[in-house]
């Protein structure tokens, strides 16, 4: 309840005229030559001192990728992407792989401070009431700092950049990399497999409840640079981890490509909760610039009674193409997807989930709230399938869309398939508009049109907001209000 009010309060205190994170950090960077070839991939792999097997894995993905075509089935449109006109690797120029925060370029730390990310552990520790969050920060292509490592290590939790995991935990990486999203999975995932530069890695050992939230902030800074990070999270039997991902980028006139891959693996009785607050630059009011967010996220409930829960708040990006999914392989495993997708201006969102029921008595729940304003198009695309052996599978899906104004669109495209007669799949969907009656009621009490819209929209998405860790729920509400700026005539 108090959190809803925060939105209204914060709307006032924030300069809503501008995308708040649109600044550029002037920092020297080390880039691979523009364009994509085996040489580029060798360059990246060499920069990162990778073992031979990983270079081979990349090259194989690249060869495969050259035979593939961009997917065309999503309800989005954009001019063709020139994959040779992108820098595939950019790293802030400083001592590579800083070992402690002291070695990180102060300009970078200032950037993250501007983004409101408490990278400096002391600051977090000083704020006694603040919940502790371990942060990994990825700037353009590389991870620049990971906090609270020592404390996590005490619990046996590994949380580090992907590159570091390749160096220090090669067996874990090799055992799990590409086992959920194969390098051949789809055009963008395959591209990522070839050129991924860094990302986050987390491993929680058997029976351990990770003592704090793990979090990664992704920041694209460089011009003409693609960001291709890769995240791998493994929860061993009985482990629990909650993970949060945040994303921002500067304002640029050109479109920038973000093609990430996230793989989650939950073994017996393990639980992974993955939350995203995605606020990539959405482009300007004419639809110029903005991030193309073409991301493959998938969780594998490999163990019995395991659980993977995706919660996403999508407010940014010019185009979003993203379907965080669960493969429910383990008996009685459970997948959840909670989503708020807000589009304004000229944004295009095609997002949803897949729940693939393979095991007996697997359950899944999908709650999707789409809010379309301005001239945006907002599509929910979801697949629920119960396979032959998925006796007793159950799914509940609820997709609600809210329209603000007359020029936007909301679309719901569910694919449902049951090959086992005992499967129960429920799908509910509604589309509504912010009614004139609701608006007038709020205005009559003294709220401005923007406060009223923020209040009504926050009410609409409340069920999903409640799934977020408290700190991030506040952040998300703030974002929702900002992203709806200018949506009320």
């Amino acid at each position, binding site marked *: 309840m108090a959190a809803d009010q925060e939105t209204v309060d914060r709307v006032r205190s924030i300069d809503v005229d501008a995308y708040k994170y649109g600044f550029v950090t002037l920092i020297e960077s080390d880039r691979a030559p523009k364009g994509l070839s085996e040489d580029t991939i060798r360059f990246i792999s060499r920069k990162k001192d990778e073992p031979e097997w990983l270079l081979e894995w990349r090259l194989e993905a690249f060869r495969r990728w050259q035979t593939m075509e961009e997917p065309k089935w999503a309800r989005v449109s954009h001019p063709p992407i020139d994959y040779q006109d992108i820098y595939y690797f950019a790293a802030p120029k400083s001592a590579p792989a800083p070992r402690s925060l002291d070695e990180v370029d102060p300009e970078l730390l200032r950037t993250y401070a501007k983004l409101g990310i408490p990278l400096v552990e002391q600051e977090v520790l000083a704020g006694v009431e603040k919940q502790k969050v371990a942060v990994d920060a990825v700037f353009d292509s590389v991870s620049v700092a990971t906090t609270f490592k020592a404390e996590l290590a005490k619990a046996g939790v590994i949380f580090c950049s992907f590159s570091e995991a390749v160096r220090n935990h090669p067996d874990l990486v090799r055992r799990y990399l590409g086992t959920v999203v194969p390098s051949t999975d789809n055009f963008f995932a395959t591209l990522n497999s070839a050129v991924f530069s860094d990302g986050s890695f987390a491993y929680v050992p058997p029976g351990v409840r990770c003592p704090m939230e793990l979090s990664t902030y992704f920041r694209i800074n460089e011009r003409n640079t693609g960001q291709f990070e890769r995240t791998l999270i493994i929860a061993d039997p009985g482990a629990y981890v909650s993970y949060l991902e945040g994303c921002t980028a500067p304002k640029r006139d050109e479109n920038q490509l973000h093609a990430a891959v996230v793989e989650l693996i939950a073994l017996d009785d393990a639980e992974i909760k993955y939350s995203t607050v995605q606020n990539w630059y959405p482009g300007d009011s004419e639809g110029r610039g903005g991030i193309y967010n073409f991301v493959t996220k998938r969780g594998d409930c490999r163990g019995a009674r395991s659980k993977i829960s995706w919660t996403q708040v999508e407010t940014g990006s010019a185009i979003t193409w993203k379907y965080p999914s669960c493969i429910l392989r383990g008996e009685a495993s459970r997948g959840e997807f909670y989503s708020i997708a807000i589009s304004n201006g000229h944004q295009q969102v095609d997002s949803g989930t897949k729940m693939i029921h393979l095991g007996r008595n697997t359950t899944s729940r999908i709650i999707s709230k789409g809010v379309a304003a301005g001239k945006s198009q907002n599509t929910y695309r979801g697949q629920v399938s119960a396979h032959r052996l998925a006796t007793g599978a159950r799914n509940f899906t609820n997709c609600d869309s809210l329209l603000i104004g007359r020029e936007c669109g909301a679309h719901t495209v569910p694919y449902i398939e049951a090959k086992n007669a005992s499967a129960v799949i429920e799908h509910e969907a509604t589309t509504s508009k912010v009614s004139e009656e609701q608006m007038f009621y*709020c*205005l009559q*009490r003294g709220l401005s*049109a923007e406060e009223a819209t923020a209040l*009504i929209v926050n009410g609409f998405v409340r069920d999903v907001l409640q799934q977020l860790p408290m700190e991030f729920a506040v952040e998300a509400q703030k974002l929702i209000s900002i992203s709806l700026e200018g949506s009320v005539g």
Partner: protein
Amino acid sequence: MTANSIGRAQAGGRGAMLEIRNLSVSIQDKLILDNLSLAVDAGEVAAIMGPNGSGKSTLAYVITGKPGYEVQSGEIVLDGVNLLDLEPTERALKGLFLAFQYPTEIPGVTTMTFLKAALNAQRRARGESDLTTPDFMRRVREAANTLKIDQEMLRRPLNVGFSGGEKKRFEVLQMALLAPRVSVLDETDSGLDIDALRVVADGVNDLRDPKRAFVVITHYQRLLDHIKPDVVHVMARGRIVATGGPELALELERNGYRDYAEEAA
């Protein structure tokens, strides 16, 4: 009663707080308010009675600025400012309040959140700081107790699943908290049983103040047994056709609206 005094109480020479002059309003080319004039003084409770379709609710909405009504002519003046030049929010922040006949449901927005947002919006407009949460909670609790509103109700989404009586009581609760200068109550008595009616009336009576005014729209005399009006206006066919003291309401109760309906035709 002379034609001049229709729509105007004997204000003893003071200027009216809210004055409606020659207001004509239509909806899709149908004239609903026809050259209506009405003055309400500070400290006054003015009842507006009239048959169905006489334009009472339209009047309430036009005063508060609901979209969809075309004002053909006239003005609505509060403290010397023509409200018709102001947005609904600005009117509300000048201290104008409407207790809705059919309060709107807003799913997902908790009642307390809404109350706090509204109260703080009003406070900011008056140059006051936001209430602290404990202070806010205390005020709501006190007002809710007076109006016999269950705390549990305040935790529900705004007006969602409220009974008719609960919705009306919640409107009066908002009025008590926002302490508006001019309150328009649109058939707040409809759908209330006699106990609830008394509670609601007490809520209004507690707010009566020489600096505040009330426009109480109702079909029936029974609300006026509990909220004693200073003036009673009879509305028919989009205009005020008679103005008198409380005895006028009793007369209407006996004879119905037939005479006035014909007079206005």
